[in-house]
């Protein structure tokens, strides 16, 4: 009896300690970056171009490049990913083919991003002659986030109760009308989560981007211009020892952006849940 209680207490303590350790590590990393980086932030830093290779000036082109690249990547990946998920979940029965497709997407999700970078360089930049450009980078990122997007969307779609589909069809809806009117609206929270996760991953990506979008720190004027993202900017500043201060400043902006994206996701989810519970 007492032994049971003691082992119970030990187990709970270990689990609590593990949880606390995780939180502490996250807090430490974020705190460290913000502590070093926040003092660097100023309007000038955020809204002017870098000067002297990045030793001075700001990071405006990197902010623009990051946003443009990530948004373009999502714009490409979203219809492809959701379309694939709808097809897999609604229009195919579970067969060997769908298992192979799912296995394939899972494998794709496990590939290190630098491999995508290499592929993007060979295929988009060189073979398709896009050069280092936003478009080549965005397409590469789109391929990289596609598995996550397909998987989260498919799960969201499958979590919509089967009985709702049956009712819709029994009322004379086609399968496509059922997907449009019942399935997608109710899978939306899950799909949005997938999009936000993908967006966050795109914002922070370095390896896949540096080979495909290049690292020009001029402000990109079109999709065919090379651009530098925050992550790449940070990498170059730190790696080449250009400016530790500016590197931390960039890192702080990056961390805040990722936190903001995640925070927004949670806020949106909360809103969805409330609307559903109404």
């Amino acid at each position: 009896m007492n032994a049971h209680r003691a082992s119970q207490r030990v187990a709970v303590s270990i689990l609590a300690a593990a949880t606390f350790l995780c939180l502490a590590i996250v807090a430490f990393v974020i705190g460290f970056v913000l502590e070093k980086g926040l003092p660097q932030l100023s309007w000038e830093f955020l809204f002017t171009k870098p000067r002297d290779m990045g030793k001075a000036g700001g990071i405006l082109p990197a902010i623009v490049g990051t946003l443009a690249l990530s948004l373009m990547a999502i714009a490409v990946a979203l219809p492809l990913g959701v379309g694939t998920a709808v097809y897999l979940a609604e229009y195919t029965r579970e067969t060997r083919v769908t298992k192979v497709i799912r296995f394939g997407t899972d494998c794709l999700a496990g590939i290190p991003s630098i491999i995508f970078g290499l592929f993007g360089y060979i295929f988009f930049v060189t073979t398709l002659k896009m050069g280092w450009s936003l478009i080549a980078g965005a397409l590469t990122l789109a391929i990289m986030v596609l598995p996550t997007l397909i998987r989260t969307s498919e799960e969201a779609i499958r979590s919509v109760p089967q009985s709702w589909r049956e009712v819709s069809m029994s009322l004379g809806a086609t399968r496509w009308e059922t997907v449009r009117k019942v399935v997608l609206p109710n899978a939306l929270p899950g799909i949005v989560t997938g999009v936000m996760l993908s967006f966050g991953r795109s914002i922070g990506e370095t390896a896949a981007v540096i080979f495909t979008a290049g690292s020009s720190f001029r402000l990109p004027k079109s999709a065919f211009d090379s651009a530098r993202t925050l992550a790449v900017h940070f990498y170059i500043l730190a790696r080449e020892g250009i400016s530790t201060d500016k590197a931390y400043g960039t890192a702080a902006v990056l961390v805040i952006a990722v936190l903001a994206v995640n925070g927004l996701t949670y806020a949106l989810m909360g809103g969805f849940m409330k609307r559903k519970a109404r």
Partner: protein
Amino acid sequence: MTPKVEVRDLRVFFGGEEALRGVSLDIAANRILGVIGPAGSAKTTFLRALDRMNELKAGCRTAGRVLVDGEDVYGPACDPVALRKRVGMVFAMPVPLPLSIYENVVYGPRLNGVRNKAELDGLVEECLRAAFLWDEVKDRLGGSGLKLSGGQQQRLCLARTLAMRPELILLDEPCSGLDPISTARIEEALSLLKERHTIVLVTNNTKQAARASDETAFFLMGELVEMGPTGRIFTNPSDKRTEDYVTGRFG
């Protein structure tokens, strides 16, 4: 008078298993056919075969013929989507769609392209009244259908089916889990509805079949044992098994 529905040697297989074993019967227009039988006797399977809902399940195969107004619904010319617009179904478990009460009722009409607000409003009131739900929900038509009680949800599902103006209405144990008052309301609604519709009422409650139906069919283990006017089935059945079941001596 030709029957509304003619069923001929209807068989339904799930995988290799034959769930419905060659049923033949006629359903007269503007009548209520009660379908009774113990659990697992394929009442639901029979009902769903009439509007081709079984085929939405994997591994299901149907053989035989179902003629609605003389047209074979399993024939190559029949579009199941068009068929389901003519044949309404209310499931055993009430399943409101995650929409407002109003939008639940107009789901079918909207699919048919009805856009006129006044027409939709009129339809909502008419169908909710026919399902004896109007007075309880008329002040909260914009509220979620999921927030209604079980009995109210079932009547909402009935109203939603009525809004399609189906010729044939299939009801699968619409009163299971309902209190006597809600049950009485639904039965009252059905007795009025048969003036314009043909109704098939599957029920686990033999008393309900005795009260509400004009004819009764008794199913057992996937087969039709006996069918006839409700009065005769309950007072003078020709099959011993039917007698055992309706007198509650079954098993």
